[in-house]
């Protein structure tokens, strides 16, 4: 327990001393909001859905950076190896990272919510907003497990590339840039089977009039289980940087 608290404190301290890193990560979704969502969308309820999508996109980017890049860096640095020799195991570190993710998910969503609230006619009751943030927090779990797997199993130099491209691809395939209610077309057909879709449907259902697709929910459970197993295996097999 003490190890968990100290790990959380350590992650927070480190993150807060270089806040610009996280500010930079919010750049892309914020620009997406300003350039595409605001001018194109007139209907307030559509604004709410699009804002939710952008918040999800933000969480994907944050998770990629935090777990993908963060883990890759830790594997490259002697400190990461040192921490692995401490008798804490992966739990305190993971717990700390997830707590930080949840905080970042909320903080990262605030700019999007602010843009929607002050820049458009859209409104949302407080209860629904909180429900939406809760669903967003849930989305951290599968995203974190996915990016952890990548962070631990891929060559650290490649992780940085993947962590940059992956959020964009997953968000696109998951239909974040399309109408959530669309029921035909390529994206609408494949989206329920992709890892980013399930969490998104929960967020959409929390903030708007969205009917959750059962296929997406089953796939959400399947993906979460698959990523959990892969992440645990990758963690145990990891030996840091390898040279051949």
């Amino acid at each position, binding site marked *: 327990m*003490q*190890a968990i*608290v*100290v*790990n959380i*404190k*350590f992650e927070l*301290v*480190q993150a807060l*001393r*270089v806040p610009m890193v996280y500010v930079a990560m919010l750049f892309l979704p914020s620009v997406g909001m300003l350039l595409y969502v605001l001018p194109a969308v007139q209907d307030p309820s559509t604004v709410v859905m699009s804002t939710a999508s952008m918040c999800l996109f933000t969480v994907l980017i944050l998770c990629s950076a935090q777990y993908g890049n963060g883990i890759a860096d830790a594997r490259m*640095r*002697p*400190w*990461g*190896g*040192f921490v*692995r*020799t*401490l*008798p*804490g*195991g992966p739990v*305190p570190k993971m717990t700390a990272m997830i707590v930080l993710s949840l905080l970042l998910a909320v903080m990262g969503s605030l700019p999007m919510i602010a843009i929607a609230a002050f820049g458009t006619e859209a409104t949302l009751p407080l209860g629904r907003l909180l429900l939406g943030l809760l669903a967003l927090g849930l989305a951290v779990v599968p995203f974190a497990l996915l990016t952890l797997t990548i962070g631990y199993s891929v060559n650290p130099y490649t992780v940085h590339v993947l962590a940059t491209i992956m959020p964009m691809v997953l968000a696109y395939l998951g239909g974040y840039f399309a109408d959530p209610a669309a029921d035909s077309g390529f994206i609408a057909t494949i989206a329920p089977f992709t890892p980013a879709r399930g969490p998104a449907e929960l967020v959409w259902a929390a903030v708007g009039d969205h009917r959750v697709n059962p296929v997406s929910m089953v796939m959400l459970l399947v993906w979460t289980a698959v990523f959990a197993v892969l992440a645990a295996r990758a963690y*145990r097999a990891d*030996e*840091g940087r*390898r*040279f*051949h």
Partner: protein
Amino acid sequence: MTDELREEAVGNGEFLARAVGVTRRYGDMTAVDQVDLDIPAGQLLGLLGPNGAGKSTLINMFVGLRHPTEGRVELFGRDPRDMKARLRMGVTPQETGLPDMARVGEVVDFVAAHYPHPFKRGEILDRFGLGELVRKQTGGLSGGQKRRLAVALAFVGRPDLVFLDEPTTGLDVEGRQTLWDAIKEFHGTGGTVVLTSHYLEEVEQLAQRVVVVDRGRCVADDSVEALRRISGLRRVSVLASELPPLAGAMGVEREGDRVRMVTADADQLVRELVASGVAFTDLEVQSGSLQDAFLALTSKAPAPTAA
């Protein structure tokens, strides 16, 4: 291992760690090749070897960072990845890679939180001469201070066994002395130490037992004195203006009138010297340093006659 050392180990009751027939390959490269190594309680063991000999790979397997390709590594009778084994072990990374943004005190607290009975922050920092730096971010420390902090972290959790991989690399004389004192103090209170070093002087100063690793294999494993004896090398030096060639002298260095010779048989060399009838004064015979033994064992110097 010599019999006396083994007896001491058995007397103390346990091997804290052991490697049994351990091989580690990276692709085609064999870093560690069929190594057997026991680490008994209370011993200060020096691992000596040239760069790339496999010392760090061996240590990384003991601390659970790498897994053997073949064979078995035990730490306190368990898999080194077992958290229970790690509770009693401390390690310092060879390279210094502390998190730049964190303060010295925070790093120590972070490590301490993983152990049930850690040292107090001030106590451990004072012991390593870092007491003044609690509030400083590690990124702002000098190279020597970082190194000392990295080594101090190995001791924070009151371990029974510490692995120190090149602990004093890059330290000045004073910093090295501080570390040596801390290591000796730990060992004096019953702690077990495995130390790798490039500095033979360091191993000679600190270690009781030396394991020489070369190309992934243990080429020697003995007490520091025995290793010096095994190498059988002596340094013979005299003041003489002129010397005939002597059969027993392996390396001859002249500095003014002082002539220094390395030999495998000092007695025979002195006899030869006397028999040659040449005038000399100030005869000195010294046992060879660990350096001589090391070079002889890793076959980078003329091999001494078999001991």
